[in-house]
Structures are given as structure tokens and as C-alpha cells.
């Protein structure tokens, strides 16, 4: 029941906001709906915590893993909605790009992502992941400028093609399951597959084939190199709150899908194959992204590449395996999503106050925009994986896992990449913060919405760096229990 609520509140909200014309009504109703959704997610998570698994019909199921990702989603969405209330004031008036359409699409987007998390059926999950692309494509192209249209088009086509392979992979998977003696009705149902996993060992070549396609497919959406090409464009051209959503939730969403498959494969034929694949992708992503960060010129593109790098780290965390590795990986997704939200919001402020995101034209922010600049510094330090911020802890865990599992090459590659990333971030941000500002900022202060959201993010990062609350640990343990 609660799951239905969680699932359909966004849909209802989408339709609701479409029915309004007055921007204040739109924003207000959006905030209310967001609040409701968060509450619903909270209740759902609590139920899951009590019951372990919550089922609704054949196609909706929520377990520990779901609740972890759901909470992440809820948190970020709430922040995004609050921020947007302040940020989305002057929007273009066009087909599908007006304020109400913005919120409507955001809620559709939210709906599809919730659906991904709740769908018990792998086929269903694929449909929802594809749907997320469709729902967000219009948001990417929201501003209708050359850049955004181009980015939206690329995003749409590249991801659809990539995801198509995931469908093929799912089919092969289904085939393997059917051949493996699972009833064709439940042959795509995740938990029954988990139970039958050990029986599928015989079909290992099919499973491998399936995983290759799935990895390519969902990997495209996660932004693994070399399928990442859509990601910088989309992140850079979307409105800042949407960039935050893309980077902080959408990637996790695809990652979630991949995790589900990885879990089954690992149970069926042992983790070696899938984890090696993840390590390969992770290694590529970390290396290429870190190097490309050096030569970026646009702030949001830089952040986009850093997302690629961090998802690569997560992939490595999953790849090296072990409960510590997985724990670290999940924690890292959480930390990363918060840090990225913070930074994309900050980027939003930068664009608003300086009218540009070209980094060579941003100077002297420390003086002209002290608060935004401060937020930028915090976010950068966090992204670079320095204490006392959360990402230091999760990276530390992943390193521990990697070394304990004697994956020395990948570990040292990661160390090197992290140093390069630090150099790149330091180089760009130092130049943006110091020096003489070209033009005076529109506003030096922060609006209450902006300040609130950014402050929350910063507080979370700091807190997570100093101490992992028991609740989060329990949540993560629950998630691990599901996939291990």
C-alpha cells in the first residue's frame, strides 16, 4: 500500500502542477508534494526496516537496497525542489518549457526513478530506466538553446541505444533463466532469480553474455567510459537543479539496476566475471575522467567529469567486492550525491550572479561572492576526498577493500587518479576564487532557499566525515544483506 503511495504521489503531483497556472501555486504545490513524497518514503523505509521486504502485487517490491536508494532519492529530490523554488524564477515560455512543465517533468522523472527502485521485475526495471531517459530528456533540453537542444538530442539517442543493449541483455538473461528451469512467469522476478541463482550455474556462458550487454547498457546510463559521452553535455546544459538530479540520483538509479544483475550473476557463477568487468569500467572511468578534468573550461562540465570519476570509484568499490568494498561503494554513492548536489547548486548561483560558467572568465569569487565561494571550496575539498568530509571516509573504505583484496594495480591507479583530480580541481578553483573579478556580482549574498540547501549539504558532508550515524550504518547493512 505504502509503496503505491510512494510510487503514485509523484505522478499525481505531476498532473496536479500541470493544472496550475500561477507560478507561486505551482512552486508551493510542488514543495507540498515533495514533502509528502519524502514522508511516504520515510514510512516505507521504516516498514522495510521492520519487515525486511515489502511487496505490493507481482511487480512492486522494496527491500533493504531499495530503501537505501529511495532515501537517497528522497533527500536529494527534497533539496532540489527547495532550491528550485528559489532558482527557477525566470524560465522560457515554450512548449514543454515553462515553470509548470518544469515541475511536471521533474515529478515524472521522480516517478520513473521511484518505479525503477520499486520494480520487482527486471524487465519492468528496464522499462522504467528507459522511461527515466525519456522523462529527463526534455528537462535537459529545457532552455531550448542551441546547446541544450544538442545535449538533449545526444542524451536521448545515445542513452536509448545504450539501454537497448540492456534490453537485449535482459532478454538473454530471461532466456538463461528459462533454460535454467525457472518458470517463464517468474523468470524475470528478481528475488525468485536470487533464490534460483545457484541453479543457473550451468548456463554461465549465457549469463556472461547477458551481463556484458547489461553492463554496456546500464553502463551507458551510469556514464562509464567509453559510453560516457552524453554525460558532460547533459549535465552542463541542463538547468542546475536538474544537473544535480542527473548526477546525484539518475546515475545511482542506473547503478542500482546494474547492482541487481551483478548480485544474481555473482550468486550464480561467482563474482569473478562481473567484478572484473566493473573493475575495467571503473579503471577506465577514473583514469580518463581525472585526466579530462584538467582540460575543462566549463564549470559544470568539470563537475560532470568528476561524477564520471566518482561513479568509477564506486564501480571499483563494487568490483573489489567484500562487504567492506560494497559498504564503501554504497556510502560513496551517498556522499557523492550530496557533494554533487552542493556543487551544482553553487554552480547555479555562479551562473546567476556572474552570468557565465566559463571558468577562465570567473575570477576573485572569494571577494565578490564570499558565500558561494566558500561553498565551492567546501564542495571541492569534499570532491577531492579530503578529510573531514564524507568522501574521504568512503574512499578510505574502498581503498582498504581494494588492498585487502590485493587489487594493487587498480588501487594505485585510483590513488594516482585521485591526485590528478585534486590537481585539476585545485587549479581551476584556485583561479576562480582568487584574483580580480572581471565584473561585479549581481548579488553577493545567498537567498534563503539557496543558503538552506547548501548549508544542509555541507552539514551532511561534514557530519558523515566525522561520524557515520547508526541509522545509516543499519540502512547500509540492510542493503548489503540483500545483495550478498
Amino acid at each position, binding site marked *: 500500500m505504502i509503496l503505491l503511495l510512494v510510487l503514485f504521489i509523484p505522478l499525481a503531483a505531476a498532473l496536479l502542477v500541470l493544472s496550475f497556472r500561477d507560478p507561486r501555486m505551482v512552486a508551493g504545490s510542488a514543495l507540498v508534494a515533495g514533502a509528502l513524497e519524502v514522508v511516504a518514503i520515510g514510512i516505507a523505509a521504516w516498514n522495510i526496516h521492520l519487515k525486511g521486504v515489502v511487496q505490493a502485487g507481482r511487480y512492486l517490491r522494496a527491500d533493504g537496497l531499495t530503501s537505501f536508494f529511495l532515501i537517497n532519492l528522497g533527500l536529494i529530490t527534497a533539496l532540489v525542489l527547495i532550491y528550485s523554488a528559489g532558482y527557477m524564477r525566470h524560465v522560457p515560455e515554450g512548449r514543454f518549457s515553462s515553470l509548470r512543465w518544469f515541475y511536471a517533468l521533474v515529478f515524472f522523472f521522480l516517478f520513473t526513478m521511484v518505479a525503477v527502485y520499486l520494480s520487482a521485475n527486471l524487465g519492468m526495471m528496464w522499462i522504467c530506466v528507459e522511461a527515466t531517459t525519456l522523462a529527463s530528456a526534455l528537462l535537459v533540453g529545457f532552455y531550448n538553446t542551441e546547446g541544450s537542444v544538442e545535449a538533449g*538530442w*545526444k542524451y536521448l*539517442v*545515445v542513452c536509448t*541505444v*545504450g539501454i537497448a*543493449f540492456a534490453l537485449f541483455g535482459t532478454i538473454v538473461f530471461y532466456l538463461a533463466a528459462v533454460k535454467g528451469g525457472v518458470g517463464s512467469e517468474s523468470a524475470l522476478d528478481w528475488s525468485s532469480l536470487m533464490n534460483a541463482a545457484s541453479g543457473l550455474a550451468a548456463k554461465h556462458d549465457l549469463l556472461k*553474455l547477458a551481463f*556484458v*550487454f547489461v*553492463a*554496456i547498457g546500464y553502463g*551507458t546510463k551510469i556514464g562509464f567510459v*567509453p*559510453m560516457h*559521452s*552524453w554525460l*558532460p553535455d547533459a549535465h552542463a546544459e541542463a538547468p542546475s537543479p536538474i544537473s544535480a538530479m542527473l548526477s546525484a540520483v539518475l546515475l545511482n538509479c542506473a547503478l542500482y539496476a546494474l547492482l541487481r544483475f551483478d548480485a544474481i550473476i555473482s550468486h550464480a557463477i561467482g563474482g569473478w*566475471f562481473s567484478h*572484473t*568487468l566493473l573493475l*575495467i569500467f571503473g579503471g577506465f572511468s577514473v583514469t*580518463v575522467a581525472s*585526466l*579530462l578534468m*584538467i*582540460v575543462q573550461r566549463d564549470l559544470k562540465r568539470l563537475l560532470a567529469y568528476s561524477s564520471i570519476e566518482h561513479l568509477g570509484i564506486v564501480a571499483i568499490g563494487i568490483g573489489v567486492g567484500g562487504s567492506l568494498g560494497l559498504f564503501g561503494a554504497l556510502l560513496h554513492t551517498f556522499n557523492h550525491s550530496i557533494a554533487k548536489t552542493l556543487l551544482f547548486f553553487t554552480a547555479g548561483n555562479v551562473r546567476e550572479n556572474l552570468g557565465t560558467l566559463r571558468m577562465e572568465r570567473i575570477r576573485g569569487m572569494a571577494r565578490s561572492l564570499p558565500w558561494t565561494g566558500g561553498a565551492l571550496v567546501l564542495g571541492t*575539498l569534499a570532491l*577531492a576526498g*579530503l*578529510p*573531514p568530509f564524507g568522501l*574521504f*571516509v568512503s574512499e*578510505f573504505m574502498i*581503498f*582498504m577493500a*581494494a*588492498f*585487502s583484496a*590485493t587489487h*594493487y594495480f587498480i588501487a*594505485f591507479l585510483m*590513488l*594516482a587518479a*585521485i*591526485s*590528478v583530480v*585534486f*590537481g585539476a580541481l*585545485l*587549479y581551476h578553483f*584556485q*583561479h576562480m576564487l*582568487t*584574483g580580480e573579478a572581471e565584473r561585479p556580482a549581481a548579488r553577493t549574498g545567498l537567498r534563503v532557499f539557496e543558503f538552506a540547501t547548501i548549508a544542509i549539504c555541507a552539514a551532511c558532508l561534514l557530519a*558523515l*566525515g*566525522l*561520524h557515520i550515524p547508526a541509522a545509516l550504518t543499519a540502512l547500509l547493512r540492510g542493503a548489503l544483506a540483500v545483495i550478498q
Partner: protein
Amino acid sequence: MIQAFDVLLTVLLLVPAVVLVVRRWPSARIISSALLFCSLATGLAIAGIAFWSGKHVSADLSKWAPFPFSLSLDRLSAFFLFLICLIGMPVTLFSISYIERHYAGARRDWLWVLLPLFVLSMLLVVTASTGFAFLFGWELMTLFSAALIMVDGDSKERRHNIFIYLLMMHAGAALVIGAFFLFLPHAPGLDFAQIRNSVALLPQPFRTAIFLLAFVGFGTKAGIIPLHLWLPKAHPIAPTPVSALMSAVMLKTAVYGFVRFAFDFLGGGPAWWGYLVLIFGGLSGVLGVLYAIAEHDLKRLLAYHSAENIGIIYLALGAALVFVANHAPMWATLALLAGLLHCLNHAIFKGLLFLGAGAIADSTHTLNLEELGGLLKRMRVTGTAFLIACCSISGLPLFNGFVSEWLLFRSFLAASGLHNLTAATILPLATGVLALIGGLAAACFAKVYGVAFLGRPRNQQAENAREVSLPMRLGMVLLAIACVVIGVLPGLLLRPLGATVQEFLPGATLPEEAVSLATLMPWIALSVTLLVIAIALMRRVKKTVPTWACGLPGLNARMQYTSTAFSKPLRKVFSRVYKPDRAVEVLPAGQPFFPNSISYRSVRTTSFEKSMYRPVVDAVVATAYRLRRLQTGNMQVYLLYIFVALIALLMFMRWS
């Protein structure tokens, strides 16, 4: 005592809060500095007790942290904690008035916020007893020091220097992280105890890898040449108390880390480790002092001397490693004793020198030696303290620098007793290197003191220089006293230091020779003083006359020997090292007689930045640009990438 320890930590955390909260009060900074001073005093007391009594203190904060996070004081940590607090207190005193006089508003507040945090981070590093705690403190130390540098101001050059500093520190930290984690496959966790217990299982390649990582990683922080690149860039641009802390204390945390790894964790290794450390120690010792001699900016000169002294310390550590490899723990003890003691000594006199530089800048607004002169008559206390520091860093007897260098000399000489021919040849020869370093250092500081404090003032500001305020003088005097006390009564430290070494080096014993100096030094000091006093009493009254100018009148300051001139002979002799690029410019050009102006310029062209670092950085950036071209912007190419990736994976699947 444990409570005291917790109190210390909390107070240090408290100070910034106080500053931030009550910074509107006029008395806020007094309160915060007082708090800082008291907490440091507590730390000194705790460390002192733990160091002399050998009583271990530990505080487990794991319940607050995401990882096992505990601090503990064994004798080694206690020694370094003692060092931090010993330097920290005078520096705090100095800062009270220095910061007041030189900074205002937000900057001043920031300094008072960051200073305690910086101290706290260093304190974490030396007391940490888990890998996480250590690395936590290690990274914070870099961050806070960099922040403190940034507070001082902003310019293109400063930006560049800070960038290099942070980048190198981070790279070094990455190596240290690697060194820690390489223990993991064999150790259950990164608790120091666990590491120690697991080391027995560690295969040799791992030991070597860990050692090399630790050597380079900590070496970057310690600033051994050629990893010193950041040192002369970061130290001069920091606020003086901060440069004092960085050069005097922060570098030592790196030495601490290296000692922990090389001796406490790994328990020494093959002899070539020792020779490696020895070679790089000698290299940075000699090159450091040679570069220093060519410098005329006081702070940069001092920065190069940090590289030199770190070189001496690494000579000692290298010798110790060689001794351990040759199963001579007693002599290893002697060498380690020298190394550790030199850490403390260098901390004291280098801190004093930087504070002195601060005092000079405070009253003359310049650090360029060529513009100073005759300061001793105008700043007697500062001058005297600075003189003591100069004698100490030149390793002259009666001052602390000599004690550690003497110990090192003796351990080198002792190597002649080893059976291994290589060790018995190389270590005694190292005395030559150490002697050269000592001689050059003496020459350099004769130059510094002679040009800055003696003779005539070279410009108006030096002419009007006045003695600095009481707290600043107090800070310097405390350190000067420390120099003399250790120099005259080394016995105070030798035995507890011996015990310290025994704690982590199996079979270590303190050779009796080490103590002979302790018995002799007081007598020498006493008799020298008595003699000087006696002669002074016999002296006739003095008569003040103008300086002899070969009978001609009008001898002025421009006729004095400049710093450049003083160092010229040495620069000429060692021109191989400097590869100087000289240019003499005569104006008006063309006619050799009666020129209006003759300007002479000579710059050192050898630089590791050009020959070592540039190529690497360029290579990385070039790769980045090459990769950038793959992101063509053509979507069809992107699709192609996906198909290629798919096919590649399918092949991988087939053939795996």
C-alpha cells in the same frame, strides 16, 4: 593524565570557536591566545612526563569516528609532542603581538582560528595510533597550513606557490596512504599494534615497496632534495609564525612518520635502504646549504637550510638503517639518537631564526639582506638571540646544533668496527660530507649575521630599526635559552632519548661514548665563560674611532661587503652546482671608462623544477589534451564507441 590529554584536544578545538564567537570583543584574541598557550603548556607537561617517565597514555575516540581512531603516547610520540609544544609556546607568544601588528579584521581572526587547528592537526599526526587517525591528521595538516598561507595575501606568484605546495603534499599523502594500505593484506586492520604484529608475515617485496613509498611520501613532506620543490616556495610566503611552525615542526612530523615506518613497523631492512637514505640525505644536505648561500632573501635562505638540516637528519636515519642491517643495534641507537635530537635542535633554532626574521621584517619591513645591516646595535635582544641561533645551526660547540652533529660524527666513526666492508668505508667517509655541510652552514650564517646585524645599516629603514615588542622578544629569548641549555647540558636529553629508541628498536643500548660529551660539555662551557669574564675584567677602556678607510674620509655603507660579495668565492668554487648565468651591464655601453652605472647579475640556472617536474606535468597535460580530442562532439562517433566497447567486451568474454 588521560583526562589532561582529552582536555588538551578539546581546548585546541575550542580556541577557534572562541575566536569566531566572541571576535567582536576587544579581548577575544587575548583569551584565545592565552587558551592556546595554556593548552600547549598542558601538552608540554603531558609529553614531558610521558617522555621522561616512559608512561604510556592513550585515548580511544573510535566511538566518535567512522574508523578505529585512537591516540596514544609512547615515548617516540611523546618526544615529538614535546617538540611541537616546546616550539608552539614561544611561537604563540610571538604571534600575540606580531599578528596584532601586521593583520587586521577578518585576516587576523582567520589566523587565530587556523593556527590552533594547524597545531591540533600536527598533534594528531604524532599521537595517532591508527592509520585512519594518522592520515586524517596528515591531510588536515596540509590543508590548514595552506589555508594559513592563503590568509597572508593573494598574488599570481603566491597562487602558483600554494598550488605547487598543495599538489606535492597531496601526491606525497597518496604515497603515504599506499604505504599504509600495503600492510593490509597481512594485517587485520590499520591499528599500529596490528601492523606491528603482522609485519612478521610480510614478504620482502612488500617491505621494500612500503619502505620506498614511505621514503618518497614522507620525503616530500620533509623536503629532501629533489622533493624539496615546494619548500622554498611555501615557507617564505607564509605569515612568519606559520613559517616558523611549518619549518620547525611540520617537517619533523614527516621524520616522525618515516621513523615509525622504517624502524618501528618494518624494523629496518636490507643495507641498501640505509645507503639510499644516506645518499639522499647527503645530497639534500650539501645542495640545500649551497642553494642557501646563494640566496639573499632571508626567509628563502632559511627554507633552504631546512632542506639542509633534514638532510642531516636523514644522514643519521640512513646510518641507523645501515647499522641495523649489520646487526649493530648499539650504534644504530647512537645514530637514531643523533637524528631525533637533531629534529628537536633544528626545531628550536630554526623556529628561533624564523621568529628573528619576523622581528627583522617587523622593524625594517624587508627581508632582503642587501638592505639590512647594523641591526645588533638597534635590536640587542633580537640580535643576541639570532646570534645564538646562528651558532646553533652552524653546529658550533656550546650550542645545541653541535650535540646532535657530534653524536652523528661518532656513529659514523663507530662504523669502522663493522665487518661489512661497504658500511665500514661509506659511513666514515660520510663524516667528510657532514663536515662540509657544517662548514658551509657556518659560512652562510657568518654571511647572514654579518650582513644583517653587523656593520653599518644599508638603508634608512635599517637605520631607524627599533627593538620589537616584549612578547616577541620573550618568544625568541625562550628559544635561545633552549638552544644554550641543550648545548651545555646534553645529558638532560640523551638518556631518555636512548630509552625512547630502546622502546622501538630491538636490542638497542645506549653506548657510553654518547654520554662522554654530556660530562665534558659543561666544563668546557664553564671554563670558556670564566676565561672570557676574566679577560674582560683585565681589558682597558675602549676608545671609539671611525672605521679605518686607508686614510681617506667618507667611508659609507655602500662600501661594505654585500651578501652577494661575501658568497662570491664559494659560488665561484661550486659553480658546477649553480651553473650560474652571469651578466655584467655597463652604462653607457660601448665606452669602458667612467661609466654611470655597472650592474651585475648572477642567477642559478640549475633547477629540479625545470629538469624533473616540468616534463612529468607536461606529459600528463598533453595526454589530457589528446584524450580531449576523443570527445569529438559528433554523436555518431559516440555511438561507435559504444559498439566498439561492446565488441571488445564480447571478445574479452570469449577469451577469458
